[in-house]
């Protein structure tokens, strides 16, 4: 059910917002301080020391897209990252560590060793948001933040490698995973360009390229050629027997 509603939300983020990634590409992200859900005080750079990371931000008390977005990420990339780490940080100054833990638990992350959940130190939040191009606006009537939903890839030197806004096809999320694993992603479709049939798609389960319906279309000609030959053969055989 939830999955359906998430895909229903796949939004048409305009083309420019996606190409916007280039504004931030290879920008150095500041080494902000944070507290992990385990209570450990640390910095962003110590999280990237062993692995590149996929970073997303949320607010625990967000009644909007935060929960569906985190769930969508969980479904797209799974709970046990290998060769990279997933870090989800709360930017909301009202959130406390218990709120972060509750969010993680609600989404089924009982074991803190899978994704890293944490709370940003309040005075460091603006620097990080600016560097990532993350827009936040407090709506006082709703008493909630209007904010971006976004996934970023940070390499081990603290450079921003990729950045993707909104709910996109999970196969595009896998592009970011591959980048976080240190693969050089040679080419990628521009999110938001809508075509009916593609030749290749990323398998959201495994992260490998697989043939898609477009390529299946390329298999039609050879198969129909053999089918045609065999059919003709059978027809000729039938006639001869008669």
């Amino acid at each position: 059910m939830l999955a359906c509603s998430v895909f229903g939300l796949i939004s048409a983020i305009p083309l420019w917002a996606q190409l916007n990634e280039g504004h931030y590409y290879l920008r150095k992200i500041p080494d902000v301080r944070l507290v992990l859900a385990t209570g450990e005080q640390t910095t962003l750079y110590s999280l990237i020391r062993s692995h590149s990371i996929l970073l997303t931000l949320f607010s625990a008390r967000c009644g909007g897209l935060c929960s569906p977005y985190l769930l969508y990420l969980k479904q797209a990339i799974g709970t046990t990252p290998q060769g990279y780490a997933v870090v989800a940080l709360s930017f909301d100054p009202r959130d406390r560590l218990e709120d972060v833990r509750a969010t993680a638990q609600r989404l089924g992350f009982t074991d803190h060793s899978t994704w890293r959940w944490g709370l940003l130190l309040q005075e460091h939040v603006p620097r990080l948001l600016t560097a990532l191009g993350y827009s936040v606006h407090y709506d006082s009537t709703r008493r909630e933040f209007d904010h971006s939903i976004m996934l970023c890839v940070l390499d081990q030197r603290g450079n921003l490698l990729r950045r993707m806004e909104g709910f996109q096809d999970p196969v595009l999320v896998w592009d970011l995973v591959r980048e976080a694993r240190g693969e050089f992603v040679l080419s990628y479709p521009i999110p938001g360009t809508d075509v009916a049939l593609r030749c290749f798609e990323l398998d959201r389960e495994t992260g490998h390229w697989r043939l898609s319906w477009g390529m299946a279309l390329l298999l039609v000609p050879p198969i129909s050629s053999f089918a045609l030959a065999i059919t003709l053969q059978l027809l000729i055989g039938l006639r001869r027997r008669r």
Partner: protein
Amino acid sequence: MTALDRLTATWIITVSVVFPIAILFGILMRLNQANVLELSSLTFYSLMTAHGLLMVGIWFVMSMAGVSYLLQRYVNVQVWPATVGYVLTLVGVGLLLAAIFGGDLHTGWYFLYPLPFYARTSEWATLVFLLSLGSLGIGWFIWSLGLLVAILRRYPLTQALAWQHLLGKSTPETPPFILITTTTLLGLIPAFIAAVILLGLFLIQYASGATQDALLMKNLTFFFGHTLVNEMLYFGIATLYELFPALAGKQPYKTKPFVALAWNLVLVVVWTAYFHHLYMDFVQPTVVQYIGQLASWIAPIPAVAVTTFSVLGTVYRSGMKWWLAPTFFFAGVMFWIIGGLGAILDAIVANNFVLHNTLWVPAHFHTYNLLGNVLFSLGFITWFVREKSGDDGSRLYRPVTTLYLLGGVGFVLAFYIAGSLSVMRRVDKYPAFVSDGHLWALVGGLFALLVLAAVVPFVIYVLRRCWRVVFSA
């Protein structure tokens, strides 16, 4: 004269008339690039489109007409599928020329998606162009099917593919001609189906405006285009297998297990060779690029190996008489291999990185077309003319072969050299930073004039004799 004789002679006449005109288009292009002529961009690209489509078209139908004629030695060939093919070819070419010269169609033979939607072509011309491709495709499809049915009536499919020879048995015998024709027909039919799918997707966009995936469209385009041109060469080889041993005064070739293996391999691998057209599309997954390089090497090599071996073995100490037909076949095999060498060098991805879409590409495909496949067809034509008129064209032998081969070699060499100097293909005027382009265009154009000088008397010789075949009582 039988109906098939007349139809074959009609094909020869049609092809012979168009050939010098299409050569002339090519020469005009080269001279324009050399700054000797001053054509408008639109005229240049219209000529380029016409040159490519006409050359591929006439030599495809000629190779197929040759195979259709020789097939009657083994099976009962019906004339009507070939006649339908002829009529629809004429219709298709007529529509094509109307679109090109009446409607400024200038998208190149391969009309790479989405160029037709962005080119300065009249709207009707694009539609007429698609219709003309439809007409050619349907005509050739019916013709191919006719040939396939004729073969299957006599040889069951497994036997037509020589699988019994593959397993080491020597009976029942499948002649190499039947084996090669069958694998080529089975390889060719998918190209027509791919073209139909491609046209369908184009028409969907016309009707609804829905955009297609540019990568998928490019894959389909080259599946169709590469496969068609590749298979046309194999029809030429089939003709050679059938005629060459007799021309050398030797026994017909037999299908050895290795020959059977080579052609069965060709049948499957040929469909993946086209991937080399997309090497520089980094979006194509890299594993496909690896397959492309392997397939580009595997597809031609067995065929080249068995053919070369057979032909050289036939010629060795044969004491044979060299006249137009055997000379054309022999030279054709040599240049097929030389062109193949140029092609596989370009099919290495690391080389393609600096050669893709330079003149190296027309260099190698002209080598195995102008000096390869066309010669196989000319070999068939001269053999046919001698069969029907008894005249072997001995007066033409020295001037025609000398001019044609000398002109052809100089012409392609100018392409190779310019390609290695990074001169690009498909441009009407060379930008200042590739100034080498002008000189080599002039050299190429002049050598091409020699080819034309050889072709014109040859065509007159052929036309006169084929005319008599068509209108004999």
